[in-house]
């Protein structure tokens, strides 16, 4: 039912999502340019490049330490809103999985919940405000529900992934309250939130990685 996610797995996943983000440069830059300052892609891309560069070190750490290190790297390399939000989130996640070499599905769900809580608190933001939270929050909700419903690991991952993608898509019609899109007269309505889209890439890649590599077919 469950799976075991190691630091090595996480580094593999990082390399996958790094590529995904890299390939979508024009698209993501365009989303942030439309409603913000245009740097979200270059921020997050630089962040994943530095995570990938630290891959060797990360994969030899226990997963809690790896998460902490990832948080510190994202906070210091990305900068901007995303850097601190991801940085804080990974550090918070690291705490709830403290002492673990590797994690199972419940741990991952707990970690993601800790992440979204930290983001909401730090960003003084809630779901519905047209931010990256709008992808992560529904994914966490779906994850929790799936775990309590006791459905298969594969189905769980599919539900989580779908919630994240739908959540990102739902930002299109939201009015921005936080972040730069809130400066627009129309509050960014009609445009996707770039942070929600890159969040959905990450969740999607992670779920796919778990499905493809950690769960028996």
């Amino acid at each position, binding site marked *: 039912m469950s799976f075991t996610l190691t630091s090595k797995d996480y580094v593999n996943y990082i390399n996958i999502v790094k590529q995904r983000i890299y390939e979508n*440069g024009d698209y993501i*830059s*365009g989303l*942030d*340019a*439309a*409603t*913000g*300052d*245009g*740097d979200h*892609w*270059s*921020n997050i*891309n*630089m962040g994943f490049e530095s995570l990938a560069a630290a891959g060797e070190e990360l994969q030899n750490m226990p997963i809690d330490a790896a998460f902490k290190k990832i948080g*510190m790297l994202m*906070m*210091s*390399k*990305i*900068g*901007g*809103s*995303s*850097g*601190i*939000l991801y*940085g*804080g989130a990974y550090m918070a996640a690291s705490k709830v999985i403290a002492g673990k070499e590797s994690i199972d599905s419940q741990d991952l769900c707990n970690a993601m919940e800790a992440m979204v809580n930290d983001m909401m608190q*730090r*960003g003084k933001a809630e779901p519905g405000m047209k931010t990256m939270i709008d992808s992560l929050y529904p994914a966490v909700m779906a994850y929790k529900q799936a775990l309590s419903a006791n459905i298969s690991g594969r189905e769980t991952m599919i539900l989580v992934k779908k919630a994240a993608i739908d959540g990102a898509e739902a930002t299109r019609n939201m009015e*921005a*309250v*936080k*972040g*730069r899109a*809130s*400066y*627009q*007269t129309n509050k960014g309505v009609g445009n996707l939130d770039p942070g929600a889209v890159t969040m959905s890439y990450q969740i999607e890649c992670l779920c796919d990685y778990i499905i493809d590599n950690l769960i028996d077919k």
Partner: protein
Amino acid sequence: MKKIINNPNNVVSEMLEGLAKANPAVKYSGAGVEVISRKEKKQNKVGVISGGGSGHEPAHAGYVGYGMLDAAVAGNVFASPSPDRILEGIKEADSGQGVLLVIKNYSGDIMNFQMASELAEMEGIKTASVVVKDDVAVPDSTYSTGRRGIAGTVFVHKIAGAAAEQGKTLEEVQAVAQKTIDNIRSMGMAMTPCILPAVGKAGFELAEDECEIGMGIHGEPGITRQKMVSAKELAERLLSHILEDYDYSGSEVAVMVNGLGGTPLMELYILFNEVEKILSEKGIKIYRTFVGNYMTSLEMAGCSVTLLKLDDELKGYLDYPSMAPAFRV
């Protein structure tokens, strides 16, 4: 994209390296930290630091110097510096009396400076913060992020820096910085987009005869996109937004006409000439004027106008000597 750069990923460190070589009064922390600070550290003085994304040069590193900032912390282009960088800036600025953080009101900056100040407190350094929000293009609000901090920030650096230089306490420096913020309003416009080095192309376009009133210093949306107007009409338009928001009538003000990087000084002076006429008609007395590129947006063409209402206290701090290369008084 045509820029005089090497690798887009190294623009900040190479720029600051160049800046520190050009200005012997400051030192550069090195790549990855991106802090410019005074070489001669005065003891037992409140430190004043600022910072934010790069691309706003001479902000913020150009304002480091006697009478102004003790350190400036640079993020990547248009991205707030991270807490660890800011912490280094705080440490450089600290000489035992605490450090004031002058923050521009963007959620990224707020979150990063906030965490940095927590880290500093953990290391035993007292900090206080002020948040500059002078851009009247955005409605003020406590629910949302609210008003952006733009060119008016430079006046806050100047005044807080002078107060600190004169030996005021952290609370006093913070109070006068806050008073400055409360009396500043700015409004800008842009005529061309800017290009982030790492992105390589413009994020939006403005037609050959178009401008955007109220655009932010990161190319954030403004109030209206419209046909280009004359300098006179532009001055009226920018000032009307400012004067609707804050009552400057009968007061003495400092004026800043700020260029966004791609607009020549000639145009800024022509604009100021119109601004002066309107203010003088309205009985608003200009005490001191600053025309130039103070808070830019890479190569963007455009400008902003800032008014700061002065009293004797603020005048004194504004007139106090500053040796910061980008703001010599």
